[in-house]
């Protein structure tokens, strides 16, 4: 259980580090990014800020979860069991596991970046990411029901 506690501490550091990087990117792009008054440009900017806000929510949720788990043996054990549950791992592997999540994250980063350069590419990637998320959601529901 000590090993897992250390794992969570390292995760908190990594998550906060990546979050700081994302914050730097959003601030810099906010200062130096292109200004636009059209609806499309406003939509793109709104999407970029929305992704960032979602990321902050994700970071806050997980940091708080890990923080309380580190201080409570019962919560630590429950979290470890939930993360290492064999049925959950089996379903994750069926869906495509970490690779699929990595792909979604990669396309999301590309979507945000494309918003600064090309509206066509932005909307293409946005459609792609919506499709990927829907596929993952559908598969998750299907396999959780089946198994």
């Amino acid at each position, binding site marked *: 259980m000590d090993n897992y506690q250390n794992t969570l501490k390292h995760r908190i550091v990594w998550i906060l580090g990546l979050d700081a990087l994302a914050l730097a990117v959003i601030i810099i792009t906010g200062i130096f990014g292109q200004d636009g008054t059209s609806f499309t440009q406003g939509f793109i900017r709104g999407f970029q800020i929305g992704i960032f806000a979602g990321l902050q929510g994700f970071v806050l949720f997980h940091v708080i979860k890990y923080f309380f788990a580190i201080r409570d043996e019962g919560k630590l*054990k429950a979290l470890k069991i*939930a993360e290492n*549950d*064999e*049925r*959950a791992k089996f379903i994750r592997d069926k869906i495509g596991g970490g690779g699929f999540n990595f792909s979604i994250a990669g396309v999301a980063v590309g979507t945000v970046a494309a918003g600064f350069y090309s509206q066509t590419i932005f909307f293409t990637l946005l459609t792609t990411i919506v499709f990927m998320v829907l596929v993952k959601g559908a598969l998750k529901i299907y396999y959780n029901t089946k198994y």
Partner: protein
Amino acid sequence: MKTRIQELRKKHKLSQEELALAVGVTRQTITSLEGEKYTSSLVLAYKIAKHFGMTIEEIFDFSEVEDE
């Protein structure tokens, strides 16, 4: 795969949550095992058998496997 997990769990007056915690899985996994939707790994089967003080063959029904 058919199992006697539910029967043994009730005999020992355990909730699904208690059994799940004892063998290191989530309650949903125990539910799926009892519902014959999910087939456990060898390691989990061993943990469940050890928890009840029985052999794997006494808890898990391998007759379908033998018929194949």
